[in-house]
């Protein structure tokens, strides 16, 4: 197929060529130089609601293929004072979404004269992902606290879904800890239990997922504000390492 010759141009093949070149799944099959690999937050992100707020956590690795571009990334990005988003997928796409939504919420809170609801923030994120679903690769979690409904966690995965969940995971590392969640999550856990759950989950995912690694960054969001905790690599809980 010659791209410049209209007679032999095949649109489907052309699009497929683009996809296979940048597809996350195929990067193992087609060995491409890492500079041509998009920078992704192949990631583990976790968010859980507790009575009075939310606890969110992520690993700190940004990878471009096999190269670790940033080993202490901050994937917990504030959208407002008390609403955060957790980013997984393409680093550029998720940063762009977070920037635009931060602006939208800033404008809205100036108009309404009060901080925006978590649901509104989640909707803004979801609308961007849905609108550009064919172009973006962004799986995000929006979590925070507002006066009306307290702590809330909303999942905004790839296609543009919006769903509120008491606990949710995201990113490539999450596949390794769904079983851990199913076995260890109980509703109405205390704040400390939720913290241990999040930290342990991230640690387990880091040990198994090549695209997740580094340290664990955790944030606790409630009516009093945000408390950030960075658990460095050697302080992560010990798991049995074969």
């Amino acid at each position, binding site marked *: 197929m010659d791209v410049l010759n209209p007679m032999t141009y095949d649109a489907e093949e052309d699009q497929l060529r683009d996809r296979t070149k940048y597809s996350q799944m195929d990067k193992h099959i087609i060995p491409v130089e890492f500079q041509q690999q998009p920078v992704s937050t192949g990631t583990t992100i976790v968010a859980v609601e507790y009575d009075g707020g939310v606890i969110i956590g992520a690993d700190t690795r940004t990878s471009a293929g096999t190269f670790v571009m940033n080993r202490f990334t901050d994937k917990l990005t504030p959208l407002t004072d008390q609403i955060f988003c957790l980013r997984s997928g393409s680093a550029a796409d998720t940063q762009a979404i977070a920037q635009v939504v931060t602006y939208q919420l800033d404008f*809205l809170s100036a*108009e*309404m004269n009060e901080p925006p609801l978590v*649901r*509104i923030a989640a*909707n*803004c994120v979801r*609308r961007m992902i849905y609108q550009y679903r064919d172009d973006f690769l962004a799986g995000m979690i929006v979590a925070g606290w507002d006066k009306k409904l307290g702590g809330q966690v909303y999942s905004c995965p790839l296609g543009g879904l919006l769903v509120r969940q008491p606990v949710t995971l995201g990113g490539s590392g999450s596949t390794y800890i769904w079983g851990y969640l199913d076995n260890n999550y109980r509703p109405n856990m205390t704040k400390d239990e939720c913290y241990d759950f999040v930290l342990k989950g991230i640690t387990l995912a880091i040990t198994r997922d090549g695209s997740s690694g580094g340290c664990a960054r955790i944030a606790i969001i409630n009516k009093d504000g945000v408390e950030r905790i960075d658990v460095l690599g050697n302080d992560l809980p010990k798991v049995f390492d074969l």
Partner: protein
Amino acid sequence: MSSIGSGYDLSASQFSPDGRVFQVEYANKAVEASGTVVALRCKDGIAFAVEKIITSRLYESGSNKRIHNVDKHIGMAVAGLLADARQLLTVARDEAKQYKHDYGVSIPVKYLADRLAMYMHAYTLYGFVRPFGCFILLAAYESDGPQLYGVEPSGVTYAYHGIAVGKAQQTAKTEIEKLKLSELKLEDGINEAAKIIYQVHDEVKDRMFELELSWVGQVNDGKHERVPAQIFAKAESFAKASLEEADDDDDEM
């Protein structure tokens, strides 16, 4: 009339020497000429009562209602030029729809009142349009309690505990001030609002009128609607009975 414009009242784009925009004041006159609307913010909800004056027996009853819904949770009652109000109703509904589309949650009534006020104010700035000749009342029962807002033709908006607009607004306001609104329950508020309408209605000037009643509050879970038939009947008979009581009192003198 003491307020004769004498040349400074020809368009809304002119101030008078003493700093008034006469066109906006004339718009208020249009509001004052319409049937009375009474709104009460009770402890657990808001009651609207409208005196819908009927000018001819030939009109079908129930036409040209003056209470409407903007989205499920916000009620709008209008006083003034009905055609102007119809356009504002469309604008309000569009705002509510756009907010829901952009942000996924229902529009807060305070925000809607501000948007509507901005729209109405825009029409007071130019010479080639005229201000809206209606006073809009917006009511909702939100998570922080009942909220009642009123938007004037000038584009100013206030939040109210109770308000009356229209022909008999002064008399009705006096009646409202006699009530203890913060302790009034919505079911009683409906009756009181109906009673005020009946009391201030001028039998001589406007023979026939239809009473319109609506409410929004804890009782209907924040969904604004016309009151159910039995509540309506109860309110009407309460209102008529209190009128007769007043008459009886007069007779005894």
